[in-house]
């Protein structure tokens, strides 16, 4: 068979994040399906496709960074350096 069966790729049950957002995969947010009933009904999306879209998003952002500079500095690392420098001064 070519293709996939939705039943074999059905996303996990959603857990609520807040009043309007749910989550099925860690850090992958989804608009509450209850809000998508009247005008824009949701489509069935197999789990692999959701994860592919999320991964592609990160690839896209890395690709975009690469358009503008050779490297990206980390604020978290610089904050650690600042704290260390301030500690030495104390």
């Amino acid at each position, binding site marked *: 068979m070519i293709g996939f069966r939705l039943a074999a790729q059905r996303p996990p049950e959603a857990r609520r994040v807040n009043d309007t957002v749910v989550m099925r995969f860690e850090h992958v947010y989804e608009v509450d399906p209850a*809000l998508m009933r009247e005008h824009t009904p949701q489509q069935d999306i197999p789990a692999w496709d959701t994860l592919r879209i999320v991964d592609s998003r990160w690839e896209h952002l890395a690709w975009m960074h690469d358009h503008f500079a*050779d490297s990206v500095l980390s604020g978290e690392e610089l904050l650690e350096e600042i704290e260390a420098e301030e500690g030495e001064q104390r």
Partner: protein
Amino acid sequence: MAVAALPDTLIDELVAVCGEEHVFTGRSALFNRARVPAPFPKHRWEDYIPQAVVLPTAAEQVSEVVKLANRHRVPVVPRAGATGLTDGAVPLRHGIVVDVKLMDRILEVDGEDRTVTVQPGINMLKLSEELKPLGFIYPDNPASYPCSLVGGRIGTSGWSLIGGRYGHTRDLVISFEIVLPTGERIRVGDGGGKKVRKSSSGYQLKHLFMGHQGTLGIVTEATLELVKRPEAEFSAFYAYPSYLDAWRATGEFARSGAATLAGVVLFDEWKIAYLRRDDEAYIPQPDWVKGVVAVAMYGNADEVRASAKRMLRIGKASGGTYLGDEISQGDWASRHDRYATPQHGRTRDGQVALMSWHCEDASILYSQLPAVREKWHAVAAGLRERFDMFDDWGMFAYTNGAYKPWGDYLTEIDIGIWEMKWDDESWSAWVDAKREIARIALEHGGSISACHGSCREGEVDLVPEELGGGFEVMKTIKRALDPNNIMNPGKYLLDEAYGEEVGA
């Protein structure tokens, strides 16, 4: 309203100039060039359909098409990426659309004098991809960076996200060749030299032929700055408990004096509420977050590193909470490509509706941002109350001055519009709201637009008020350069420059 076809003789002449494969009169070619991403009265679509589309491949062809249009008294409308938000490429009087997308070549890279000369149909992202192996970048960076074109950027005189460091379009374009409304080809720049950045010789015509929204000609070639590709990028996003806290911090960042500072972006609480709907960076933010400030820097690695530490100290001293590398880096990267964002509108009962994004922009002084914000949101609320097809998506303020990004801000309010719902009543209310948004900007000492231009229905009514005697000069120039009102007629109230007997 049916649109009359152009005479066969004119079509034959266009084919003789551009070639049969580059002249289009079919429905799909015409309908697709009736609108741009700005809100469009789709219930009156036929009012804006051009009569022919040509895709020239050389400046000589553009010139000949414009001369033909003069002889036949048919409007000509230039079109590049068609990503503009003020209808520059919309054919208000039908006519011939000159689509420059096939003129997309790089003509020369001059590493010695640091210029790159291109045709107008090239996209900035693609240009920078070609320049990267040579160690250069062309840093004109609008929200439409992956899809807008150099020719349109000149016609709009647009704003760049990293203009605080590298300048905006007007600072990055050194000179260009333009086909005037009569078909003559001239070159304008900062003086006579094609590659000279500063001259005091004669009138400074470069600025005249930028931002005219296609009313003064069609650019056929441009010489641009060739900029050293940055070694390093740094971006930091800070959260604040109130808009005013974030606004004060924005001023501190912008006035820091760091030469690598490319831009500062202020998000208000409406914007954060909107992003909490479906943006992974903002959904997890705690309820106390009511303002966000983003800072971005580019340049040599050692310089960026030193000034980034300065910014991080300012962030801490101003009471900000650093949102972490994932959000700071990821969200900043997404800012280069805002035409691809999800468009989750909400009706008043909270249901998702697919809405178009629209951004009203103005130049607003730093001191006036809090007051303007309140008034603009009130205008958006009034629209939403009357019509359940508008949605307030919040406001941004971006540093606006090139190389001195501290005094005024490109200020935008984003409004979601359910365009399938348009009718004459809602369109009229929208135009009134746009006029009101522009009036508020002027009342607070601002300008109607920092980036898009101001020639759409509504705000255009206030352009004479904003420019005063300058608007009379605009009309004089328009009539002198375009005696038959051929070039993009109907824009910027410039039809007022002509008597009833003249007009395409």
